[in-house]
């Protein structure tokens, strides 16, 4: 596998951040496996997932770090922000406290990533509309004020989950195309993989295991 040419031309690094229990791991699982985990234990530190997608007929491999919301892991998870091209920042529409904490997550994301990192706000669990505690409008306004992309999603039904991950990639790709994202910058979170085996540009990226079981 490793010896052959790459079957994708870019690698984008993502992180998923937000409070405990908002559904970060379920969103990742829904995106990579198209399944919902009804009973999901709290993440220990970080989990890792990958999926290859297509944007503008370019194959792009997403390397996704799903971080634990537990306070104990804040130092652990912060070390994964570095060099992220995309950050999915998640709250739970049925729990106002998770929405109120967004500004602290956003501060972290802004401080620890680069200025071009695409930040996408996700209001998860939109299937639970009856228990809604945060309106769509106010979250939309928060997103606009802070220059974030925004969708309400459901990791349970799968609604808008693909769109959140794909729209983030499209935006990153667009930033590459218009030159605002410098691929040679140390922490752009993007690696270009020409269709040749073994590329020397592996700075701070983890080893790319195709057969990751996560």
């Amino acid at each position, binding site marked *: 596998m490793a010896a052959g040419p790459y079957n994708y031309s870019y690698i984008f690094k993502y992180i998923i951040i937000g409070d405990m229990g908002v559904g970060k791991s379920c969103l990742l699982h829904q995106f990579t496996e198209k399944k919902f985990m009804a009973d999901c234990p709290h993440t*220990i530190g970080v*989990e890792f997932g990958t999926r290859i997608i297509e944007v503008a007929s370019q194959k792009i491999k997403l390397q996704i770090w799903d971080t634990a919301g537990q306070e104990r892991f804040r*130092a652990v998870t912060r070390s994964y922000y570095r060099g992220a091209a995309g950050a999915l920042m998640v709250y739970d529409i049925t729990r106002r406290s998770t929405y109120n904490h967004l500004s602290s997550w956003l501060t972290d994301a802004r401080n620890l990533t680069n200025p071009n990192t695409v930040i996408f706000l996700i209001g998860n669990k939109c299937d639970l509309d009856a228990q809604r505690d945060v309106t769509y409008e106010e979250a939309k306004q928060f997103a606009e004020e802070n220059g974030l992309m925004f969708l309400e999603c459901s990791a349970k039904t799968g609604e808008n989950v693909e769109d959140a991950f794909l729209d983030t990639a499209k935006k990153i790709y667009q930033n590459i195309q218009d030159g605002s994202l410098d691929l040679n910058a140390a922490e752009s979170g993007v690696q270009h993989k020409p269709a040749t085996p073994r590329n020397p540009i592996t700075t701070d990226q983890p080893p790319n295991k195709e057969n990751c079981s996560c």
Partner: protein
Amino acid sequence: METIVEENIDPNDLKKFEGLYNEQARRGHISEKTQFDYAWCLIRSRYVSDMHKGIALLEDLMRIAKDDLSQRDYLFYIAVGFVRIKEYERALKYTEAIRKIEPNNRQAQQLDGYIKAKMKKDGLLGMAIVGGAVLALGGLVGATIAAVKKK
């Protein structure tokens, strides 16, 4: 799982958290969080002596862990530590202990699978069983965990 287990820490991070830890040690009180952060840095160091030290700090945290969630978290990182120093049989005892707390924990299952694959590759699985090492160690770790659990 390999990505998570085999990754080495940025030496600057290690230095930073070591500084915080030493500072608190000097003042006479080390918070649980500071100890955990430092231990986590140590087990991901390049140096085996650091990894041992990290495991010891985590085992210390295990003893004072107040709830299942924190116990589970410490068990996981101890297991990672043992994998990194290639003490696979001991690592397996810790993934097993996590499963007692959370039978469906995917991360523990994945780590377990990763360790077994490594043992198979190194030809250790058969050897350890023949040598009875698994049984002996199992008793030891089991006793520690049992001691923590009854409170």
